[in-house]
């Protein structure tokens, strides 16, 4: 019963169009796409959305973050329930894992608000075209 209520709340929240992520300092609003409309999917959980420009994006349970300083890194991992998957060779840039895709969106948006975070966004599945 409790699980059903949580799922219902989640569905209502999704339909309200509250999802977004930050591309640098630009907010990108997301509208959920029913999974049945998606032709392909990765194994495991992927949340699919449509951007306002019509591009479809998938969100997995990972985020990409770059820190201005590493002072609060461990605190952030703990606070947002994140796990380090990879440190890139591009300054303090990391690939972090969240429990679920929704957690990844929430964690990325929360990290973006921190003064020592340069950018934070979900690891998106997108469409890159060969030209």
């Amino acid at each position, binding site marked *: 019963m409790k699980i059903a209520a949580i799922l219902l709340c989640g569905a209502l929240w999704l339909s309200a169009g509250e999802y977004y992520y930050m*591309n*640098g300092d630009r907010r990108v609003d997301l509208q959920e796409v029913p999974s049945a409309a*998606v*032709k*392909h*999917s*990765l194994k495991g959980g992927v949340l699919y959305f449509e951007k306002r*420009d019509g*591009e479809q994006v*998938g969100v*997995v349970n*990972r985020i*990409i973050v*770059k820190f201005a300083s590493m002072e609060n890194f461990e605190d952030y991992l703990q606070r947002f329930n994140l796990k380090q998957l*990879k440190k*890139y*060779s*591009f*300054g303090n*840039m990391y*690939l972090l894992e969240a429990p679920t895709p929704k957690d990844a969106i929430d964690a990325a948006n929360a990290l973006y608000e921190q003064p020592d975070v*340069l*950018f934070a*966004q979900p*690891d*998106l*599945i*997108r*469409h*890159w*075209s*060969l*030209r």
Partner: protein
Amino acid sequence: MRAAAFIVSLSASLLLSIFVVGCGLAGGSDSDPYSCTRDYNKSNLPPLPNTTSFISNPLYYQQWSIHYDRAFYESYGISSAASINLDDSGHRFLGRSVKVAVIDDGLDVTHEDLVGAVVATYDVQTKTTNVTPRTAEDNHGTEVTGIIAARNNDKGPVGVAPAAQIYFIRMPFDSTLTESMIIDAFEKAKEWGVDVINCSWGSGDVSAPIKAAIQDVAVNGRGGKGAVVVFSAGNGGYDAIGDPIGNDESGIDEVIAVGATNIYNERTEYSNYGPQLDIMAPGGEYLGITTLDRTGTAGEESGDYVYYDSGNAFGGTSASAPIVSGVAALLIEANPNLTREDVYSAITCGADKIGGVAYDYRGHNEYYGYGKINANRSLETVR
């Protein structure tokens, strides 16, 4: 003989410099990192190599994009100035010892015209070295790689830099491709210490993480000289009429954005445009770009090559970008001291002002960038 050729080359370079400055085409003030008045470091350059002929490559005559072949040009009404002018001094430099990364959908590493070309491979999806095309449509990477580095070996066409070392990175251009895979690709290119990175693809809206990765490689790669990152500007989306480059990967400041010209030496209808556009190169319109195809029955055509007149001829800004990447490899062989900014300046400042359009005080036009790449002229400036 070598000394005489060198003096001729130096004189041409000096005359060109005078012309460029005199005509007001210099690209900005002394503080401009891309200025056309820059001094290239010409100390301790390797000896000028002997001239090499490409004539014995059986499809060379079809390669209207890189050289003028009178009979071929006349039979198709191609503008005599349509090529990138890769003659004479261009054939001295072949991209020897220059590392060129190609990030694309797969590579037929067994191709007869790539024997000895491929030094390293990496697949960002499987984390293995297997970059073999996975689907029937994964032909693009072989076509792009051929334009850069098809060998000068009496087979097929010849690449712009036929002695360049290819470092191929495969990405899946399907619904499994993630931002982190693309970042992995640029990290691998940085780890390999490549000189040039060719990307004949894009999103139209680059993300902050990918932009940061590209900028890092461009600025800090190549042992601090900076890797030359080349992106195709795009083909105008679904309607194939040019679109603004906008926030595309090719629009990143540290990237060379390449548009496409046709056989009439004009911008193709589909080529994307904007203030971010840097340079034009032949991309095929009316005639395609002869290059490698996957071997046998795989690929665009039955056989090992895709021809200028094939039903599925290769073209687009995807074909233009590797031409510029190839020239960048020639420049780095000609002068290994060059920084990323040096290569950018040599390419843009040496370009032909085509299209009958006005270029601004910097020598730039939103539909033609700094003009169409001229390989010989750019090479003359850096030796």
